[in-house]
């Protein structure tokens, strides 16, 4: 999923698209049009019945565009690809499913999450960081065990978006 990839030295336009995709995801938006003097960025998010694939239709960035609204939205794929949505680890650390060892997990399979729902803790250098879902949907699979070390960007949960 494009919006969780590390931000490397990429063009400002790609970074902008990345940020917009993240916003769409976070606030569950289906369309964003961003126009300034030289650039128009149009993003559309298509839903599939079995699960949305927010980044599937290639976000279109036209530089420059003389007629801002000219570019038509990309056609919907005939059969939208069902791309799994993951909540990924933003850092290297140790994964914990619950706030304390004797407490129940933040989420389990079937839990409904919103973007600001805390789904787990990642501990690194004795700093415990709450990780938010960043998406709206239902937890379909927990991919790591409590206490397990995780890598940067490693998928932690598979989410059935809604």
């Amino acid at each position: 999923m494009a919006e969780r990839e590390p931000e490397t030295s990429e063009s400002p336009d790609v970074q902008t698209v990345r940020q917009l995709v993240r916003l769409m995801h976070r606030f569950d938006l289906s369309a964003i049009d961003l126009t300034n003097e030289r650039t128009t960025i149009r993003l559309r998010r298509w839903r599939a019945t079995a699960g949305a694939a927010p980044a599937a239709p290639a976000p279109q960035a036209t530089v420059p565009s003389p007629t801002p609204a000219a570019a038509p939205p990309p056609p919907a794929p005939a059969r939208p690809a069902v791309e799994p949505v993951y909540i990924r680890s933003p850092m290297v650390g140790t994964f914990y499913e619950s706030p304390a060892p004797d407490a129940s997990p933040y989420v389990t399979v079937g839990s409904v999450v919103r973007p600001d729902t805390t789904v787990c803790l990642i501990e690194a250098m004795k700093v415990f960081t709450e990780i938010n879902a960043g998406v709206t949907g239902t937890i379909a699979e927990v991919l790591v065990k409590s206490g397990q070390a995780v890598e940067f960007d490693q998928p932690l949960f598979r989410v059935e978006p809604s």
Partner: protein
Amino acid sequence: MTVPVSTQPALNIRLLEKLRSAAGPQAVGELGANRDRVLADLRTLQAFGFGLTWLDGDRVAYVGPASRLCPDQIEHELGTVIIGRRIVVWNRLTSTNDLAARLGATSGNEGLVVLAEEQTAGRGRRGRSWSAPVARSILMSVALRPPSRLADLPWLTALGAVAVAEVVAAAGVEPGRVRIKWPNDVLVGSRKVAGVLVERGAVVVVGIGLNVCQQPDEFPSAIRSTATSLALETGRDPLDRSELARALIQALDRHYLRALQQGPGALNEAWRSRLSALGRLVRLQTPAGTLAGRLADADLGAGLIIESADGTTQRVPTLSVLDLDPV
């Protein structure tokens, strides 16, 4: 319902300080113009728990600190800018970190300090509870809302450890024996005197547990051989926990302000110079596997330099270190 101790009437700490710094007993008449007022203030101090002795009915001497934390004493001439703008002291809490996180969500509570005499669900390192007998240690949590450049993990981890190490050294422990065990436990010699636990949600909470008054039999048997307290290390008893809490708040504030002005690197040397593993053979756990060698150098930002037996060195980013143990 637990009532915060800070609802007590204000104490005349200036009077207390005058008595404390005096060489011997003082005549009541020497302590203030209004004799009745001085007597009333002395009685209030005594009622709170400060140790005062009366001699021939008219002279009074300071004999020792109150056995409980005194918010007025902690706030007296505190002089900090951010940390300690508000201080609350509770007799009993589930966890000082939890309360600091809840109250710290309000931006006006940046720098809030929560202290408790007792925690019913204190957290230490994951999977272990932080246990402490009532009123024998300092259990403190600070709510911070650092700007993003100061929100990085290594820096937050080091902040608490460096501040505690300075307070421990200033309390009379030989400074060379005060070490920081990766990443943020504070040791005297090889025994743990304090632990730091940072939690980061909507707000950053730095939680500190510092053993102050404990005698060996007050530690759970499982940690008796690896734990220590300031009383055990300095041979001083009783120690004034309110003074220590104030010193700790001041140290935290000093380092926090310096980092705000000079950047997170300002903390590095204080942390590095006390790192117990520096120069030693260590084993590192990283997501990529285990790595062994001599810890040649450590920098919160740049990472760790590990020197292999054949003299080659490699740099490991600080954030890739899951664990570091002496070999």
